[in-house]
């Protein structure tokens, strides 16, 4: 078996000269080549790479769209149609960008729920995890403002409904809203500043992603067993093992992505957004993009305006408390028979909330939203803390290798003790 060096030694004279001035090759080598990766990672762990791909894809397509797009209330709709009709491959770039947002969110939701299932948010990965929540919030802001840019009916009314949420703030609410709008209603100044911020925020996401990856490389990756790497045999070097797996997964994801773009490019959008914005007519149903629906359902479940806004914001911010709300000593749900059932119940409740968010806010739907919202918060505030005390987890394996291969079997991995994860309460 070939030797996997853990430290980078430049071979050429130029390499030595450069490395002593900017040790970036060494950084890349230790982070993405020699970095020890648990050998039992499933495809759920490839979504990090998929998300990096989606971020880059969105920025690239977005930059090219911005070369033709006009952020002006009188011209925006027309300029998008110009891209769709006259710009060479404009339809492709725009459909990639529009569907890319949905793909980005599909990937991020898989990533988030993988983290919930395997307890990746627990010590020592709290900061890594909270940085992830921040990225998610930035993604939501970026996606919302991006949806406003084509200036169709749903753009306009979505912007009106969401910016009006801020008017629920006592005393200064109305002032905040007029500062968001730059006028007395959603209009040209609003569109202009949304474009500016929609272009800025992705680069802020890049910044937080760098911190997220940095924070990942301190404790190393979690894995399906939830127990840390104990010896070199538990791990393989990042390159080529994780790299090739990630690349394969990204290409499979691209097939999925391409299906939407080429065959049903408007399925995830709203027909109303092909009607130019009209401030005098509200569409019959104002529905946000699918990825916001669970939170929209929570907003509407609370009959009070301010209360609804607070509940919606709390629904995401409560994620930040998970590392401390979860009292279980075991990370991976694979060894938590009772929690496993609650986890799937939580998934069902989230899906139900998403569906309810797309329904009109009346009758049965409101009552169901209220029940689901109550359970959503109960999951974090009751289930997570209580279960840690009452649940008897299954016995944990001694090592990753034992779990997946039996104790003695197994091929070559890293030299032993290469990068033991700091011992935690698990």
């Amino acid at each position, binding site marked *: 078996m070939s030797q996997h060096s853990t430290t980078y030694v430049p071979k050429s004279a130029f390499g030595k000269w450069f490395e002593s001035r900017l040790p970036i090759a060494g950084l890349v080598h230790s982070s993405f080549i020699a970095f020890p990766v648990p050998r039992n990672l499933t495809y759920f762990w490839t979504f990090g790479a998929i998300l990096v791909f989606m971020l880059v894809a969105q920025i690239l397509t977005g930059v090219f769209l911005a070369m033709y797009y006009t952020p002006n209330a009188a011209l925006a709709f027309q300029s998008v149609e110009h891209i769709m009709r006259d710009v060479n491959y404009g339809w492709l770039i725009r459909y990639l960008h529009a569907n890319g947002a949905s793909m980005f969110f599909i990937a991020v939701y898989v990533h988030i729920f993988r983290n919930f299932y395997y307890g990746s948010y627990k010590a020592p990965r709290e900061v890594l995890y909270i940085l992830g929540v921040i990225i998610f919030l930035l993604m939501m802001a970026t996606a919302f403002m991006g949806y406003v840019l084509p200036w169709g009916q749903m753009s306009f009314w979505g912007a009106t409904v969401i910016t009006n949420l801020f008017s629920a703030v006592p005393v200064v609410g109305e002032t905040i809203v007029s500062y968001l709008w730059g006028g007395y209603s959603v209009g040209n100044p609003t569109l202009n500043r949304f474009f500016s911020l929609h272009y800025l925020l992705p680069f802020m996401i890049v910044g937080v992603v760098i911190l997220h990856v940095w924070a990942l490389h301190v404790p190393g990756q979690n894995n399906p067993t939830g127990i840390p790497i104990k010896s070199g045999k538990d791990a393989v070097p990042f390159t080529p093992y994780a790299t090739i797996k990630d690349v394969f997964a990204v290409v499979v994801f691209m097939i999925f992505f391409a299906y939407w773009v080429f065959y049903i490019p408007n399925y995830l959008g709203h027909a109303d957004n092909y009607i130019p914005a009209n401030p005098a007519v509200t569409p019959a149903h104002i529905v946000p993009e699918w990825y916001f629906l669970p939170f929209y359902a929570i907003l509407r479940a609370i009959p009070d305006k301010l209360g609804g806004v607070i509940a919606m914001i709390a629904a995401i911010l409560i994620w930040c408390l998970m590392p401390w709300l979860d009292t279980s000593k075991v990370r991976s749900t694979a060894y938590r028979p009772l929690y496993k059932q609650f986890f799937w119940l939580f998934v069902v409740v989230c899906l139900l909330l998403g569906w309810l968010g797309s329904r009109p806010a009346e009758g049965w739907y409101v009552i169901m939203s209220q029940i689901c919202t109550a359970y959503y918060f109960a999951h974090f505030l009751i289930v997570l803390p209580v279960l840690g005390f009452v649940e008897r987890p299954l016995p944990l394996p001694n090592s990753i290798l034992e779990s997946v291969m039996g104790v003695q*079997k197994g091929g070559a991995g890293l030299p032993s003790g290469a990068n033991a994860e700091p011992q935690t309460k698990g």
Partner: protein
Amino acid sequence: MMKRTLLIAAAILGLSAPAFAAGETPVPPQLSWSFQGPFGTFDRAQLQRGFKVYREVCASCHGLSYIAFRNLAEPGGPEFSEAQVRALAAEYQIQDGPNEAGDMFERPGRPADRFPSPFPNENAAAAANGGKAPPDLSLIAKARTFERGFPWWITDVFRQYSENGADYLVALLNGYVEPPAGTEVPAGGHWNAYYPGHIIAMPKPVSDGQVEYPRNEAGQPQAPETVEQYARDVTAFLVWTAEPHLEARKRLGFQVMLFLIVLAGLLYFTKKKIWARVGGEVEGHATPPMTHNP
């Protein structure tokens, strides 16, 4: 417990979705279109007939402002000849200017011009049509849809059903039927079976035999000159105006899919070969409870 939850969820979804889908307006019937599916293409003759219907029936009230005459000759559309398009454009008067004297003037259209709208602005359109401006038709096939309800919105993903706009338009054009007994239709409104709320401002736009279709050698019209056929033809034309690169999109899509699948296959075997160096890939965890090492 999880199973029970799923069952309850399924029961709720199953019960409430049809109730919603049933709604007030019927769901338009699904038609078969030449441009459906992964290899769909437009029927040129149908697009040309559809353009004729638009021009002779719809154009008096509805604009087509995102379409230029030149588009009619471009590949993937009705594909009229360049000469036909030039002649057609010249039949329209286009406002241009200002000239040297500073005045606006009218001149015959050129292929690069867009279709002139029937009204100078939306208020004029509304004023001339009982208070409601007839919508521009360039994007109408993508701007109209209907709710199909659970579980169809899931199956639609797999069968690539994206013709809801087209199906709705045909249903609407054929939907001018007698209102149910006892229904009061307000002045200026018309009863339509498929229009949401049923009262539509547009009167029945076309009747049988109104538009003459090109004849074949036998002197018979290429397609039946009926409202049913007019509706299908003009709808196909409007699907093209809404999505002029539909054919290119599906063609490129097939090539991209093919390439990606081959690449994914190569990557899969490369990955297997690389992982063989460490004794093959292992994933996940043993199914607990495992035999525990003392």
